């Protein structure tokens, strides 16, 4: 069905960014606008989700150019779920930033850029055109470049060099893949490509393009062996920025992989096996890397890599059940990872360090915070009945039914490694006796902050913790949702009809 309002999330973020730019040096006005606008944007995302959930796939043809000639925006269940999650994470990070980001950074346009980043994310999820996807990716990366370097500390700049290089390389590879795909199929609309690519006789070249897409998105989503930039850069910016990066940016890559490999390139045996092996290695390398680290945010960075492997595993098994598991994991992971990075920001404000060997005694001194942070931590480890558990159950069941024994082994190993890391983290940071830490002059501690800022840092963590509790305890809703999404992905005919069928409706 045609509905021009599906681009509203994108337009609204653009509006917010532009509005914020008028208040460049008035940081308190920016804080207020960010809080209000991010709540409105969650409202818009909920409206869009409800609309799509009730009426099926909605499309928007830019400038009334019918598909496949114009740029198409498609809001199917997968896109809108991602938009909703982005809006929720964006709201949490926005509110957290009002408390945790320094005024000096805010005066360099932190909030407008954050909203541009969210706009890019919404656009990337909603577009139905592969070149348009590239453009949204570029908007995302240019905004993230600014966010990662804003403040200009030495570690930030060093991390940014790696981050920028790998992202530019990924974009070049993505563009190369689009070039060859356009040469092969003569179309850029993803629904049209789905039909065209299936008819191409030169399967070898199609596989080459598929691998190029895999490498391009693989760099962005940090799969083995392309993940080294992630742990080297994600811990350098302020925690709020790490949260939006860790929660959302790598997941766009996963979203794109899931979309491309279910719609355009149906994996053959070689590609399927490749995905399975890559998933295993990603889980292993991320998990082992996390054990070694002592900086809390670096531990979380490695765990991002590890858990990207789980989602890739779902794609590698390529049955409806496994894809469903991957999507459940994606939903759970966005909320939990955002929350964990925010929690690390809170711990930094409490103690002035993130080195887990120096931290300690948080449970004794701040029991309420500890219980709050325990929710995302143990959701991540997948302790039943929290949210990570259900996703893993479906992934393992999917693997069992498809006889992927090696993958099941690695998924269990990955869960075990995560549990180990989380247990170590819990023991070191929360249970161990507190060590006297030298007071840092350049850190503004939590108890020195104004009450507004304190609440601004705690409320988003509570909000996301409640969301992840909902995902875990009311798992049935999420299971139904991911089941529907997986069914839509595996049988793209509804998607194709929604995009291309509009051609016959209007003269």
């Amino acid at each position, binding site marked *: 069905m045609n509905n021009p309002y599906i681009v509203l999330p994108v337009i609204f973020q653009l509006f917010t960014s532009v509005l914020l730019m008028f208040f460049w040096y008035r940081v308190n006005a920016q804080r207020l606008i960010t809080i209000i606008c991010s709540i409105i944007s969650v409202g818009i995302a909920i409206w869009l989700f409800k609309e799509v959930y009730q009426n099926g796939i909605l499309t928007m043809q830019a400038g009334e150019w019918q598909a496949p000639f114009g740029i198409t925006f498609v809001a199917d269940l997968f896109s809108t779920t991602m938009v909703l999650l982005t809006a929720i994470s964006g709201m949490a990070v926005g509110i957290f930033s009002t408390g945790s980001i320094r005024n000096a950074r805010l005066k360099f346009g932190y909030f407008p850029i954050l909203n541009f980043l969210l706009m890019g994310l919404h656009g990337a999820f909603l577009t139905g055109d592969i070149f348009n996807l*590239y*453009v949204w990716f570029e908007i995302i990366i240019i905004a993230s470049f*600014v966010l990662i370097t804003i403040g200009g500390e030495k570690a930030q700049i060093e991390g*940014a*060099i790696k981050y920028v290089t790998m992202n530019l390389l990924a974009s*070049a590879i993505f*563009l*190369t893949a689009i070039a060859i795909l*356009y040469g092969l199929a003569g179309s*850029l609309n993803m629904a049209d490509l789905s039909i065209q690519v299936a008819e191409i006789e030169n399967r070898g070249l199609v596989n080459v393009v598929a691998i190029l897409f895999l490498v391009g998105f693989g760099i962005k989503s940090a799969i083995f062996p392309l993940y080294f930039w992630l742990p080297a850069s994600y811990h350098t910016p302020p925690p709020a920025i790490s949260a939006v990066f860790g929660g959302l940016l790598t997941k766009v890559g996963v979203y794109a992989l899931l979309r491309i490999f279910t719609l355009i390139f149906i994996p053959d045996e070689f590609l399927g096996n490749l995905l399975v092996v890559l998933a295993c290695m990603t889980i292993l390398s991320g998990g082992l890397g996390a054990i070694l680290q002592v900086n809390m945010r670096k531990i979380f960075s490695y765990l991002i890599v590890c858990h990207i492997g789980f989602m890739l595993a779902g794609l590698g098994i390529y049955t409806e059940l496994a894809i469903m598991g991957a999507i459940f994991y994606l939903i759970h992971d966005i909320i939990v990872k955002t929350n964990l990075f925010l929690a690390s920001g809170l711990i930094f404000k409490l103690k002035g360090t993130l080195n887990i060997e120096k931290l300690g005694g948080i449970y004794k001194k701040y029991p309420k915070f500890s219980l709050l942070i325990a929710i995302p931590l143990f959701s991540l480890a997948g302790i039943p009945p929290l949210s990570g558990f259900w996703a893993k159950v479906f992934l393992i069941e999917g693997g069992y039914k498809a006889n992927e024994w090696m993958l099941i082994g690695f998924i269990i190993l990955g869960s075990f490694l995560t549990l180990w890391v989380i247990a170590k983290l819990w023991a070191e940071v929360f249970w161990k006796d507190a060590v006297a830490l030298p007071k840092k002059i350049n850190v503004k501690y939590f108890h020195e902050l104004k009450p507004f800022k304190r609440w601004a840092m705690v409320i988003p963590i509570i909000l996301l913790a409640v969301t992840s509790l909902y995902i875990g305890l009311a798992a049935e809703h999420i299971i139904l949702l991911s089941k529907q999404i997986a069914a839509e992905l595996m049988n793209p005919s509804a998607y194709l009809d929604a995009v291309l069928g509009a051609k016959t409706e209007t003269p």
Partner: protein
Amino acid sequence: MELILVVIIGLLYASGIYMMLRRSMVKLIIGLILLGNGANMLIFLLGRIVKGKPPIIDSTAKMLTEIYADPVPQALILTAIVISFGLQSFAIILVKRAYKITQTDDLDELNTTDEIYE
């Protein structure tokens, strides 16, 4: 014409990757620029090159019947050039900042964020 373009694209990709593998940060940027230009040329080449046949419909006809130059790749390249211009200028400034802060051009020296005990 195609053959020349193929050779040029190959050279651009090869030299871009070679430059990226060097240790100097400036060479890294040059490599990225060359790679981006190679990708743009590739879009141009794979959009099928047709000489002297603009996609303009004759006033007497309703559609194009003859072979014509596809305008889409050129639109794509234009977009990609503008985007890469922005990204590359950002990258150049970033490298300058990095040089000022770390006092080195050697990428191997930029490994403090990778060390476990920073």
